[in-house]
């Protein structure tokens, strides 16, 4: 197992190098917004532009630029400095990460706590109103775009613009360490909105898995043993039905940690997603490179974690 994980980690490093190269090619090599132009203003003279290019190091050969980036990253864990704010990319990421982590894990808790019971109950009571409500609601949840749902939530419940001003609105996020209560209340709406789509997807998937599992022979065996129906469903049934979802959840968490761009944008949460978005608007290449690499890191780590978790959950996988 340890050897397997080590191999996966090494592969992850190779993958990260490829991702950084690809990001580099997309933003530095292919024609896109010119950072110098954006900084110098509309009517800058060529000398100023050249000066800015030189300051940013954009006048050096592309291979040299990439090499510098790579060596700084590997040798000094240094992602460079933002063109826009001049702050180090590393410190920007560290500043923004807590907000994204708060957003992600709160949403995960909500969607797991809601989707699991919903999916199981819908499967057990297939065809009844509980099931129809769940599958219908799930369709709605899957179809509704996050930015629409987010704005709707703000118009309904935000304390500044809402019809029922119950919760802090957009831009009210504060770090947990500053004011835990404010942190909690300001995140409730974003959590619910972000969790809604995932709840819908997971409830539906779990319902499907569960229906399949409940017709398995080993569930019949569990009943034949005289186990209570509750134990048959929630222990024997759920155990098998939820395993594939753990994999999926791991990958989704990895993706979200890379930044829930839309949710962060709608609710004005200063997370990685918004950092990435702002960096693209400002052609802030080092920050783009940093956020993309961080997101790739999360996805790679999530993949490895999921494989390890799967081996733990399914002994048949462990052998291989």
């Amino acid at each position: 197992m340890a050897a397997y994980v080590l191999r996966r980690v090494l592969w992850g490093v190779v993958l990260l190098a490829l991702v950084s190269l690809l990001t580099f090619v997309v933003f530095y090599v292919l024609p896109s917004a010119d950072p110098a132009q954006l900084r110098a203003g509309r009517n800058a003279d060529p000398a100023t532009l050249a000066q800015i290019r030189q300051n940013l190091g954009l006048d050096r050969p592309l291979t040299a630029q990439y090499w510098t980036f790579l060596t700084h990253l590997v040798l000094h864990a240094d992602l460079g400095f933002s063109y826009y704010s001049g702050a180090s990319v590393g410190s920007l990421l560290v500043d923004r990460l807590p907000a994204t982590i708060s957003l992600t894990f709160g949403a995960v808790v909500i969607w797991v706590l809601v989707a699991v019971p919903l999916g199981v109950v819908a499967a057990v009571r297939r065809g009844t109103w509980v099931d129809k409500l769940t599958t219908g609601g799930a369709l709605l949840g899957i179809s509704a775009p996050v930015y629409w749902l987010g704005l709707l939530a703000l118009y309904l419940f935000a304390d500044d613009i809402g019809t029922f001003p119950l919760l802090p609105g957009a831009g009210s996020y504060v770090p947990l360490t500053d004011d835990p209560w404010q942190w909690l209340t300001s995140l409730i709406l974003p959590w619910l909105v972000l969790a809604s789509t995932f709840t819908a997807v997971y409830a539906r998937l779990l319902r499907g898995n569960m229906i399949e599992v409940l017709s398995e022979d080993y569930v019949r065996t569990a009943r034949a043993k005289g186990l209570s129906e509750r134990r048959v469903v929630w222990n024997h049934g759920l155990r098998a039905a939820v395993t594939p979802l753990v994999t999926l959840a791991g990958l989704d968490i990895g993706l979200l940690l890379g930044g829930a761009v839309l949710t962060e944008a709608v609710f004005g949460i200063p997370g990685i997603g918004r950092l990435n978005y702002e960096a693209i608007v400002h052609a802030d290449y080092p920050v783009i490179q940093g956020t993309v690499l961080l997101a790739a890191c999360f996805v790679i780590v999530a993949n490895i974690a999921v494989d390890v978790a799967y081996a733990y959950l399914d002994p048949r996988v462990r052998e291989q």
Partner: protein
Amino acid sequence: MNPSPPPAPRPPILRVEDLRVAFDTRDGVVQAVDGVSWSVAPGRTLGIVGESGSGKTVAATTAMGLVHGARVRTSGRVLLEGEDLLAASPERLRRLRGAAIAMVFQDPLSALHPLMRVGTQIAEALRAHRAGMSAAAARERAVELLEQVAIPNARQRVDAYPHELSGGMRQRAMIAMALANEPRVLIADEPTTALDVTVQRQILALLRRLRDELGMAMVLITHDLGVVAETADEVAVMYAGRIVEQAPAAELFAAPQHPYTWGLLRSMPRLDAPAGAALVPIPGRPPSLVHPPSGCRFHPRCPYVRDRHRSVDPALEPLAGAPQHRVACLLSETERAAIWARIAAGEPVAGATEDRPV
């Protein structure tokens, strides 16, 4: 091979009376079990034989209360020591399942939970019926049970997952689980079908030994008359949801009465068959249970069919000389005796027909 009947035959512990089970499906009502009666006494084995789809499994799982739902209709009685299981509450059935009646299933790989240790699954069966039993005690008992079904290194195997055991070991573990609460009735549904031939014999021997040790009544469901010949005291042959022949095992093999039973016997490989004797499959396929054939349900596949058989539905009736031997066939006893004599002598079957449409 079978022990002679005990001096004073004990009254049956499980008695199925006129059991009918129907499923509503998109294609219509499937009458899976259509008026079946049988019983089994402690220490005895009833073999239920038939092709897939003959209703043999449905009859047994219904008795366990495992067949239920809005689309299922059952009638008749399933009496366990006089208590009607079809009328029992779900909670009462749960208490009886795994405690008074236990079941062993066909394919132990799919019947055991793939993600749970074998010992855990056995311990769970124990604790489902013994509220006060500690986890440690249940585990200890699980080891004993695995030893009882002759699993070597039981103390290590108790922590194995099903996929880590061989097919035979898995079925032994399955049997250990069924025996956990020393049930009075054991229903074994094709317990050897998924296993290698050599392992099949071991499992049958194990079931016989445990039946005798624990004095259980055993219902052995199989498509294989060979399995029944080795183990059962009495045999019921099922066809299309009904019993077509029922007799003490020795009697059935000595003088089978129903053309379907003959078909099963002729399609069974035998070591004592004359060299070169061909195995003869039963022509045609099992009939639809939504629209069963008119008259005798076996008539489309029967080589001895007469016109009358297409309209008259035979009842299961005792033979004149052997009240325990019952058959549902419209041929006369003398006709049947003559035909069986020819078959037993290895002659080609007179009147045998080609595969005809059902």
